[in-house]
């Protein structure tokens, strides 16, 4: 069994979205209830979240964007940059706390207190670009984590694996010219799914050419294509890049019961995804992995998938 850290803070519930919005605080309630009922929660090592210092947010996001976001929340505006991005007065502070939770998990892992961690944070992050909020995301938690690993912990090569059903356009944009962060994403084909990016020919630019890899999956192809493509695309890419640490954008919205997408991945398919990723992380990154919650909107299925994922991390 591994020492798996768990980031959660009840204040993550204070980022409230409009009634009926899929990215709601009930998601975390469902995850917590599931972990409690299965007895998994007590086997995890709690990691206490703190708001991220602004300099780490600035390592990824434009200062003008950060100020614009803070002002939108303070002014009590209903949304930010797009009607999808529902906000409340507390959203800015909670977004800092979400990113900060990831940084605390990184600290605990780098100090050797834990082997790996799952961060049950919200708001999610992978759609957030340098200066644009998109798809329920404001601060790119995983991207901020990657820069923190490099600048605070001297890690040279960070791998990011994104298995949310939507392409992480924000993470791709932030690192597209960068050859020190490898971004891999498997997602529903952009002709059908939000946000319409993440095609095979998007492979990074300038120095970052070859350091972005996208695997679009056609609707309904679920388990079959995920099994095949993770093996043929992701595994060799991670092997070649040899990341020192891997961050996961863990989205659970590719499941057949999640109306957000049409991929039709099964619960078993999700186990394969976690298992394959954790195997290569153990092999090539010394097992150092921080998994960060992104999407996953079906409240019945989400806790099951998260629990399965955490079992793989903790080798239970």
């Amino acid at each position: 069994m591994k020492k798996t850290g768990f980031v959660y803070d009840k204040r993550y519930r204070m980022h409230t979205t409009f009634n009926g919005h899929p990215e709601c605080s009930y998601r975390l309630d469902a995850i917590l209830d599931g972990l409690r009922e299965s007895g998994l929660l007590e086997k995890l090592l709690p990691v206490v979240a703190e708001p991220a210092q602004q300099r780490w947010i600035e390592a990824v996001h434009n200062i003008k964007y950060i100020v614009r976001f803070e002002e939108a929340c303070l002014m009590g505006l209903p949304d930010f940059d797009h009607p999808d991005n529902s906000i409340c007065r507390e959203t800015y502070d909670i977004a800092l706390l979400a990113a900060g939770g990831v940084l605390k998990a990184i600290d605990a892992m780098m100090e050797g207190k834990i082997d790996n961690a799952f961060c049950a944070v919200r708001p999610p992050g992978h759609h957030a670009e340098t200066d644009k909020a998109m798809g329920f995301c404001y601060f790119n938690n995983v991207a901020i984590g990657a820069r923190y690993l490099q600048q605070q912990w001297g890690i040279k090569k960070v791998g990011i694996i994104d298995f949310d059903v939507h392409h992480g356009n924000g993470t791709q944009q932030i690192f597209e010219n960068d050859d020190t962060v490898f971004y891999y994403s498997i997602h529903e084909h952009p002709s059908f799914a939000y946000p319409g990016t993440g095609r095979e020919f998007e492979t990074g630019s300038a120095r970052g050419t070859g350091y972005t890899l996208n695997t679009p999956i056609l609707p309904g192809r679920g388990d079959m294509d995920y099994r095949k493509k993770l093996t043929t695309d992701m595994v060799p890419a991670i092997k070649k890049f040899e990341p020192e640490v891997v961050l996961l954008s863990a989205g659970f919205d590719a499941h057949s019961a999640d109306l957000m997408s049409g991929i039709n991945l099964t619960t078993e398919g999700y186990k394969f995804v976690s298992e394959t990723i954790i195997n290569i992380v153990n092999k090539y990154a010394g097992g150092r992995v921080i998994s960060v919650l992104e999407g996953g909107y079906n409240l019945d299925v989400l806790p099951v998938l998260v629990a399965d994922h955490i079992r793989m991390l903790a080798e239970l």
Partner: protein
Amino acid sequence: MFVSERMATSLITVVPQTTLAEAKALMDREKIRHLPVVDEKGKLLGIVSDRDMRDAQPSSLLQKEEYDRVFAKVMQHKVADIMTKDPLTISVYYTLQDTLLVMRQRKVGALPVIDEEGCLKGIMSTRDLLNAFVNVMGIGEPGTLLCILVKEQSGQMKKIVDIITEENVSLGSVMVARYWDKDKRAVFPYLMTNNVVRIKEKLVQQGFELIDPMTWYLKQLPGDKQ
């Protein structure tokens, strides 16, 4: 949907007396493949394409000395000698659809756009046309495509649009496949949102069938019918 909204208007043109050397330098520098030739009043006289330019150049198989000699001589000619006179043109009142069809029929890569007096107003290339259609389809911006199977009867589209409107979601485009399954049409709204759960639920409640395009595709493959 008129070409005047989509054509390139910052025009690079030459006069008939321009030498090929000048014209070639201009095309290389500006990275353009079509050079309209106009008179002093801006009236379109012809067009020189990169193909015309290449046809005028000596064969690359020639020995270097011979090549350079012929090349230098050729480059002193005027564009009037090689331009296509009275080229195919379109008017500023052409729609994007007209342009699409005429480009397909006449197999041309760019069309000069002229006004009633024959003066050059712009140029419309296949690239401008592609950009226009990306814009029309809305796919340059983030969104989600829905695939809805509807019965062939009136009022179906209204129901769909009403549901989308109720959820305050902006429509990028709607494509309709008129022939899908028997007596059915497929409607593909492109929604400018990530938040499609409620819309999908409401569509199903109102009796619409959401289709998985891949399942449909696989069903159509020959020898795979059940």
